[in-house]
């Protein structure tokens, strides 16, 4: 009796969470997927119409622009956050005074909601009152910073705000990883006369490989889900130059009463997530298996 109970207990403990996730994630996503094959406009209507909604979606310039924007947002955001975060972590790891205070300063933007962060940055980058206004007053004449009103550059303003918000967190993750590296190995390398950069490149960074994986996972998921930040900062503008797929989806499903297209775009976003995530997970699990 007790043995049987013991064997099933783990599954019983997990059951509520698994059931909730089955319903709230899988069934809801399935329902959304079904909607993408229907004629739903204002409200869900379960009348099957085949691939019409996807055809409309693929014929929509704004959708493709939002996908391109996601790339131009996510790639620099992930790369810059990782590089700056890693740099800060390495520097903080050099037995720095006031490390705690600096860490807190780098970390605090994560505490702010994206709405607050977006609003603050919109203000800072506004050409007529923000930083460029200040620069001008300081006598820095030609320094007009008008990226926010430039359709080809506005997306990088969003990148700056997002990097600002997440880098401290990335640095904390890396720092935690660095602190976990076995000091004996590092010392042995130092005795052998290896330089600091070499030690980091050859020994330290490879050992914190799993941290890179966590960072990629978290940053990718943040990039794909970014919504409030853009709404608060640019509302997708100028024009449609900072619209992301999340905003496209929300606009079509709720604001414009084109629920079918909204659902189709959500399915495409999920497909993107899977396309990025599955190889990432596969590579990682293979790497850990090899290491073990």
């Amino acid at each position, binding site marked *: 009796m007790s043995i049987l109970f013991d064997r099933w207990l783990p599954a019983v403990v997990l059951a509520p969470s698994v059931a909730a996730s089955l319903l709230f994630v899988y069934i809801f996503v399935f329902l959304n997927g079904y909607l993408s094959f229907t004629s739903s406009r204002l409200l869900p209507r379960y009348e099957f119409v085949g691939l019409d909604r996807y055809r409309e979606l693929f014929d929509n310039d*704004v959708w493709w622009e939002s996908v391109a924007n996601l790339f131009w947002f996510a790639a620099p955001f992930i790369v810059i956050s990782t590089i700056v975060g890693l740099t800060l972590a390495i520097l903080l790891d050099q037995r720095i005074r006031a490390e705690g205070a600096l860490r807190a300063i780098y970390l605090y933007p994560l505490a702010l909601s994206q709405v607050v962060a977006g609003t603050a940055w919109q203000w800072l980058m506004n050409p007529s009152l923000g930083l460029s206004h200040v620069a001008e007053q300081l006598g820095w004449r030609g320094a007009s910073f008008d990226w926010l009103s430039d359709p080809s550059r506005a997306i990088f303003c969003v990148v700056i705000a997002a990097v600002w918000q997440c880098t401290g967190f990335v640095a904390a993750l890396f720092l935690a990883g660095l602190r976990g590296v076995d000091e004996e190995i590092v010392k042995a390398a130092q005795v052998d006369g290896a330089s600091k950069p070499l030690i980091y490149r050859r020994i330290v960074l490879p050992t914190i490989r799993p941290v890179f994986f966590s960072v990629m996972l978290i940053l990718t998921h943040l990039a794909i889900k970014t919504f409030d930040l853009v709404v608060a900062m640019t*509302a997708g503008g100028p024009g449609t130059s900072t619209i992301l797929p999340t905003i496209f989806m929300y606009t079509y499903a*709720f604001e414009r009463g084109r629920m079918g297209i909204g659902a189709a775009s959500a399915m495409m976003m999920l497909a993107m997530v899977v396309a990025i995530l599955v190889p990432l997970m596969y590579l990682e699990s293979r790497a850990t298996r090899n290491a073990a």
Partner: protein
Amino acid sequence: MAGAVAAQAQTQDIEVLHYWTSGGESKAVNVLRQRLEKEGINWKDSAIAGGGGANAMTVLKTRAVSGDPPAAVQMRGPVIQDWADQGALVGLNAIAGNWNRELPPAIDAALKYKGTYYAVPHWIHRVNWMYINKPALDKVGGKVPTTWNELFDLADKFKAAGIIPIAHGGTPYHDGVYFEGIVQSMGVDFYRKAILEQDQATLTSPKMVEVFDILRKSQRYFDDGIQGRPWNIAAAMVIEGKAGMLFMGDWAKGEFANANKVPGVDYVCAARPGTEGMFTFIADTFVFFKQRNQPATPAQNKLASMIMDPAYQAEAALYKGAIPANTTVSLSNFDDCAKKSSNDMQGASRANGLVPAMNQGIPEAMLGAVRDVVTRFLNSNQDSQSAVQALARAARNN
């Protein structure tokens, strides 16, 4: 359970979902709340600002599918008919009384679906307004333009005098409001065919190319700081004399009134170039959602008839900068712009020129698509011809 229902009936709550949270509009809606509470009905406020009502509509949809929609909802445009078609709304014929005589026919029609009233109007806005700073106008010795060429002449004069010619807010919303004025200047029939009916031949006609040419030319008279600027900040530029002209509906008048500016003295309100005989309207209305599939609750009926009450209509329209929807209301307290507006409405109504404005007359999907095209045009080097093609394609797909 029965006790709970009885208690509910006694207190008579009514939940109101709306997005009127800014100064004048929250005053107007507060007038209504106070009147309702005098009747012993408790107003449960569900204000959801943002996105020009987009957030509120998201809330409405989720509430509707959860089977618990708010009792009263602020709404405008063809979406009223969509909700009525879903069978979600309370019909108002029982309390409509003389509405068909008190309302102009075009507005009356906007409230109905298959012969039944489903919406009740608070006030009527006119969109095809422009505002000119009077001292600035006098300074450059200009006159109120009635054609686009005259307007550009005036803009050049403003520019020469160091005044920003056109105060604009670089949002899809304001871009759309500017754009529809140009389409309307091509004539009421052209506007009807192109925008309200999305007739492909009209949309791809040379006149439509001309519309985009005028839009492109106008852009030269905007300043650098337009990105994301809310329209009321643009209005403030005209109020302060930093800019000469503003293209915005009559609600912008509230900004002038708040700054103690007097029409005719400090600023001029006029129909936009080429649209004198037209009145493009927005009717802000309430619709009432069936509660647990029941017919109208007493509180809903009470609120609906209260909205058409002349005393409320007069007070609310004053706060909102609009004119009363009920044409029997006296305008003695209103300013000259509102009186002109009312006269123009009646004239336009007789001459077939009373038409829904763009964000009243077309479904949200189409509205969004038109704004996408316009705002992308303004934020790129696209030529007018390809913008016209994009517009025609958007019309086909939405």
